[in-house]
Structure formats: structure tokens, C-alpha cells
């Protein structure tokens, strides 16, 4: 979703470029695992973490820092961050919808940048700061409040992804225009059709956050 952001390369928190994504946290590692090379996956993971390669296969215990707390989880090298959060840690804010980086319902903030946690491997997130929307300010200056007040949700299943993408966008660009909000949220899909409320909520949240 960041790739649509015109300010992506102009400072602020580092974004995920396609090249970084392929090289490090996602697909290359995933395909290595699929072809049976757990070692390759860990080499990729290691390269990102800049530590020496370590062979990992089958179940391994990792520690993830989620919403400020350290959690231990037993995962496989192929286990996604999303499935680790939901199926092991009961951090169920991020949702699994498309499970292949199309819809944004799983959006999670890793080291300050929004990622699709359904295509991010859990083992690559060790030592990183993972934030889900459960940790967001629910007061009047927070994004969740703006979504609530503008009825920017109906069934609510896409909402965690939109709220998270919105928070990440506003952290980087506190004064978005309507067009920038549209682009910033284009990596997310809603089926109930809540976009009118979502766009308004994002603009209102930007205003409220400035008053913080």
C-alpha cells in the first residue's frame, strides 16, 4: 500500500520496496521453503537481520515483540506472521481474508511500516517491533474513534486493516489530501462498501491527531 504514496521516497520511516520484499521478508523465503529449502529461508531471514545463518527446520520457538510485549510462539519456517498472531497468540485484530496480499485485512505495522502479515514470515519478524491495532489509542484523537463516529465500518471484518493502514499513513503524512487518503488506503478492500465513511474518518483522524 505504501507504493502508492508519493512521499514514499522522501524521508520518513523506511518503506518496503518491492525489491526488499522479494529479497527478504516474503516471497523468496516462502518459495525456498516450498521447494524444501528451509535453510535458504533462514539464510534470507538472516540476511535481513544481519546475523549469521542458522539452520531452522520444522517447529521452532521464536520470540515476537507484539504491542510492546514479548511472546514466545512455536512456528514453522513457513508460518506467516498473521497465522502466528491469530492462531498462536490470539492477537486476532488482523484478519485473514485473501491470504495472498491483495486485500489488506491483515495489515500490521512492523518496525513502523505497514505490511501484509499474510505474506510475511514470522521468523523474519524476530527482533522487530510488531504493532497491531489493538494497541492504538481508542480515545478521541485516535483512528478507531474516527472510524466509529463516521460509521466507517459495517460487518467490520476489513476494518482492522483499514484502521491500521490509516494509522500508518497518518504517521507518515499527517496532512493528507483526499486524493492522498485514497491512494494511501488503496491496498485495502471492503466488501460492505464503507469507503465513504472510511475516507471521512481518515480526514477527521488527521485533524484530531494534530490536536493531540
Amino acid at each position: 500500500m505504501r507504493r502508492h504514496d508519493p512521499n514514499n521516497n522522501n524521508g520518513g520511516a523506511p518503506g518496503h520496496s518491492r525489491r526488499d520484499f522479494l529479497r527478504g521478508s516474503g516471497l523468496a523465503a516462502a518459495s525456498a521453503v516450498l521447494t524444501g529449502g528451509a535453510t535458504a529461508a533462514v539464510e534470507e531471514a538472516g540476511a535481513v537481520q544481519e546475523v549469521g545463518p542458522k539452520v531452522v527446520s520444522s517447529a521452532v520457538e521464536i520470540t515476537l515483540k507484539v504491542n510492546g510485549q514479548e511472546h514466545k510462539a512455536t512456528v514453522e519456517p513457513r508460518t506467516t506472521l498473521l497465522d502466528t498472531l491469530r492462531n498462536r497468540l490470539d492477537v486476532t485484530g488482523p484478519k485473514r481474508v485473501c491470504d495472498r496480499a491483495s486485500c489488506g485485512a491483515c495489515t500490521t505495522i512492523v518496525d513502523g511500516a505497514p505490511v501484509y502479515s499474510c505474506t510475511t514470515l514470522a521468523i523474519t519478524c524476530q527482533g522487530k517491533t510488531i504493532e497491531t491495532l489493538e494497541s492504538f489509542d481508542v480515545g478521541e484523537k485516535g483512528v478507531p474513534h474516527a472510524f466509529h463516529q463516521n460509521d466507517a465500518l459495517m460487518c467490520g471484518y476489513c476494518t482492522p486493516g483499514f484502521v491500521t493502514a490509516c494509522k500508518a499513513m497518518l504517521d507518515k503524512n499527517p496532512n493528507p489530501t483526499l486524493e492522498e487518503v485514497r491512494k494511501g488506503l488503496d491496498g485495502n478492500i471492503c466488501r460492505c462498501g464503507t469507503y465513504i465513511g472510511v475516507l471521512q474518518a481518515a480526514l477527521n483522524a488527521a485533524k484530531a491527531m494534530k490536536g493531540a
Partner: protein
Amino acid sequence: MANWPASPNLIGKSIPRLDGLLKASGKAKYPSDVRPEGTLFGVMLYSPYAHARVKSIDLSPAETMPGVKAAIAIAKAGTPLRYQGDDIAAVAAETEEQARDAIRAIKVEYEVLPHVVTEHQAMAEGAPEVFKGSNIRNNSRKGRSQTKGNPEEAMSKADVTIEGTYSLPVITHVCLEPHGLTAKWEGPDKLTVWASTQAVQVVAGELADALDIPVANVTVLTDYMGGGFGSKFSADVWGRTAAELAQKAGKPVKLFLDRAQEHLAAGNRPSAAGKIKLGATRDGKLVALIATTHGTGGARGGSLFPLPYVYDVAASARTHNEVFVNCGGARAMRAPGHPQACALMEAAMDDLADKLGIDPLEFRLKNLAPGDFHTPIYEGEVRQGAELIGWREKRKPRGQNGGGPVRHGLGMALHQWGGGGTQDKKVSCTINPDGSVELKAATQDIGTGARTILAVIAAEVLGLRPTDIISNIGNSSFPPGQPSGGSTTSPSMAPPCLDAVTRARDAMFKKVAPTVQAAAEDLELRNGQLYVEGEPIMGWKEACRKLGMASISETGSAADGLASVGVGGCQFAEVTVDIETGVVRVKKIVAIQDSGLIIDRLTWESQVYGGVIMGLNYGLFEERIMDPETGVMLNPDLEFYKLAGASDIPEIVVRAYDPPDQKARGVIGVGEPPTISTAAAIANAVTNAIGVRVPEWPMTPRNVLNALATASKEGKA
């Protein structure tokens, strides 16, 4: 609700939903978020083929895989598999990864059979058969002919006629939360499930039947659910299978479908195609409609849709063929049949208006049923909508929209829906001595705001705020509640809610009156205060303390006159079309909707915005694409099954048509109506822009360019 409320404090205002902050902060626990202690993960094995027969199935390689605790065969040797996605087996394991591995280890031998996955394939002479049946020929079952008057004779006398062929593809529901449930046995014959369903009591009944246990021992819980749109009324094979796996493993099992299965097996909206002949007098009065239509609901029926639609046609004949293909079965989808009916009828209406040389808006108004209750409502709505879209100033006749590559066009369409309630539902209201108020009903909130609407009604009666009310729904053991479908929930649940709360309030007055030396009829509740003869004497909580130790609990039933049925509505679309690329951009939609008494304007508007956006998806993007050669779906995902994103959303203007006489009609549902006519209005706007009819939905570059190419070959453009 004819005489209620006399002077509302809350009813009709914009009230944020009760559970909005929980949903927006990720704290609302959906059925797919629930994971009781020891839960195993269930995964289904489904048919990779469009048509096959199981020759043999062996679960044993899966059963010995790491972490696997139970496996169940759904298909047996000899079982026919009628579509890609048909159920074969299921496995429960300690992790989802292990369960997926185990599914791959199941050994199934298939006898692959010839398939048909498109209507074209299915209807060909000598095509392979999906079903055998005495009344099925070329995979088609002839539907009943519906005839009114003498259409052939009327058509022959018509001054002007058109004949058009129009079609809409199969689309899928794409509920964001997958179908499924988590099953936990509390004892040998006692089951709790957390199900993503739009009908908790239907699911409870089906599971009790399937598992042969008393329905009183089955509790279905749905605090929240991530979309249904008509596809989540049943426990389904996977729900029953999850319960059986849990029984076998002695542990809770969570089984939710993956995205591909959602597209393949969890329901779809039938296609619709038809040849429509429409005739009118020279001054624009419809005289005859003759239509031959067909559609497919996969390996199930359900493709019939109403025709003629909305307009008054003196004579009509219509035959419909149900076509069977090797694809997953159709399910009800938001206003079943109506978007298809509206698209076909409104396209033909526009084409005839063009040939007559009459403004299509005037042509429509001229052909509303004279004397019908809804005719003046449509007239009012159309006038308002025309003004908001700028019909008079901006619209040019078809094909006269400039000479550059980007053409501009306006279109419109009318729709209709029922949206009435049932009379057999109940709501209970408990007022406790601590001042808390609890509503209970076995209905559920599919995203419409059902939970909030009940609380608003209670708060109105008790002079409280909606947030003071605990609105407990989504539990099958509560008083009988309405399934969330057909825009029937609010009109079914609002009357018994009003009745329950009114009874509870009156019972409270009776108990409290003697303690304040007043007569019950002199008591009133307003602004969180108890009033005696117009004077506030104490706060709500203090008044409730006068109840002593005993809570008050009353159950309410439906009453006549508090809800109604039957809505109209119209929509206008403004588009630009690039005739070189075929790309359509929707610039603006205007939606005017009547629906009786509006309880919460905020959630009402959300329903209408959402309906329009879903209609925009039908109009521009959505299409299930089947590969005739391999019989598989080519886009069972969310990257090639296209849905609108934030950048695709135009300006949308929503207006409630609710003069006082509308409010007096009482509560009517609004879930379905606003999604019906959007795709029709968009297609008419595209046609207005480019000068030729695009006969196939959605309005993709391919379909637009095909229409332009066909017209060009015929020398029309």
C-alpha cells in the same frame, strides 16, 4: 410504526453503532477469532475437478501425519463430484499447517468425467450432463411460462419495438470472513459453536438434526460476523463436519474455508441472460414485452428473476430456462434476482426510449403503474434524483456526447423490493435494580446495525442513551429472532422490541409508583430522569433501585401497523468512457431511497452507500471466470476477482425519501434495495456516453470495446 414515536428524541437521528469502537479497535471477537483451549484446526479437501467420480479414498496416510487428531471422509467410493470445490474429506490437526499437509496426503483416485462450466458449453447439443432428469435437456430445465394478455398481438400493433440481448455473469458473495465455525462439545450431547452466520437459530436446528442431539443443547454464538450477503444461512457440510471432527478428536475444532473455497463452494449469484422484445405506442406507452431468458445457479437452480420489472406492461410473455453447469451452487445474494431483472429491463427501457426519441426519464415516468401506491413515490424520487445529478442540464441524447476519445454520459434506473417483516419473532427486555437494561433476541448483526437499532428503540422508550442499553443478540438460545436476510430483520425485530421495552417500562412504573406516592400513569421517563406529573424527581438508577431485589423482565411480540413492506427507489449514474481503451470511470451516483421510518440515519446511510458501492462492483468489475477447457475457476482470489478500492469510489449522493407519510408506514428494511439499480444505471450511462449498447455486464474495457467493435462492423459507430 404508525403512531410511534410521537415526538422522537432519538429515532431518525444519526447514532454511531454500539459496537463500532470494538470493531474499529480490533477487539470485537468474530467467530473466526475464537479459539477455546486445546482447539484443533480443521481443513477441507475439495474436488480439484469440475466433474469426477471418487473411485477410492484412503485417509490413513493423513491420519498418521504429525499433529493429526481426526480425519473424516465426506465422499465415498462412487460419490459424484459435481464441481471444483465439492466436498471430499476433512482433517483436524494441532496446527493449521499440519492440517493442510495432511489434506495433501489423503489418497483419492478420481474418475475424471467430462464437464460443462459455461452456459454456452452446457446448452450445446450433445453436451455432457450435469444431472439426469426427465425434464432436463441439454442441461436446461424449461421454467414455467408466464403470460399476461395477448403479447404477440399487442407487439404486432406496437408503433415502435426493439429487440435486445443482454447478460450478466455469475458473481460470488466474497464475504470477507470465510464461512465456517468453531465447534466445542460441552458433553456427549451438548454443543457450543461460534459460527459466522446470518441465522443463529437455523444453524442450531441444522446441527441438532445432523448430529441427532436436542436443539436445546446446541448453542450457536455470533457476536459479530464478517459479511454474509445471503450466503450464510446454513450450517453447511463444513459446519457439520467441524462438529464431527471435534467429537472424534475430543477437542474443539475450528474450521473456516480458505478464499478459493469461498469462491468455489460457498455460494454465488446466478447469471442472467435474455432476449427481450419491447414495444410501445409512438407517444411512449409500453404495450408488450416478450422475453426468453436463462441463467445458471451452478449445480443448483435458482436463476429465475422477475420480468417485467417495475413498469406497467399491458401484455407480456416470458419463459425462463434453468441451466445447469459443473460449478458450485447459487445462494441468495443481496436482493436475489432483482439486480439481474433491473439490468435487463432497464437496458431494454433505455433502448426503446432512444428509438422513440423520448427522454428516458420521461419514458419511465410514463410507464409506472397508474393508481399504484408506489407511483407517486417513484415520481418524487425521480424528480429529486434528476435535480441532484443535473439530468436536465448535463444529459445529451445517446451518442451525442462529443467527438474526443473520452465521452461523458448519464443514465438512470428504478428498482423495487419488499423488505417486510415476519410476525412471529420475540425480544425480551430486562430492567435490573442496578439500572442496567438488557435486550435479548436470537437475531444477529450482519453489519447492518441490528444490535444498535434495538438499543435505539429501547433508549427512546426509556428516556436513556443507546449506550445505556445492553443489546444482546447472536445467541440461538435467546427468544426467537429473525435471520438477517431479505431486508426483513429490522421490520421483524423492531416491533417486538418496542413491545418488550414498553411492557417492561409499564411494569416498572407499576412497581415504582407507590414508592413515590404517585399513580403509574403519572410517571414518565425522559433524559435519564423519572418524572412525576411533568416534574423530574429522581435519576434512572435511583428509580431502578426502587425495584428492590427483583428485576423486571418482559417479552414482546409483533403488532400490526408497526412495520410495513414494499419500497421503490431510483439511482442515477454519471460516467466517462474512454472509447480507445474502453475504460469506464464512474464520476457520480445519486441514490434516492424510501424505506418507511428510519431508526438510525447513520447506519441507514451506510446501508445505502454500501448498496451503491456493491452495485458499482457488479456494474464495473465482478465476474466469475471459468475455463471451459479445464473446468476450473480462473480467478478464485482477490487479485483477479476485482472489487472496487478507495480510488474507484465516485462522489455518491444519498437521499432518504421520507416525507411524513413515509414515516407513518413504520419500519421497512433497507439492506437490499439500494444495491439493485446501480449496475443498470451505470450501463445506461455508458451506453449514453458511447452511443452503442454494451449488452454484457460488467462494463469492463473488454465488454465496452467489444460493443464498439460490433457496432463498427455493423456500421453503427
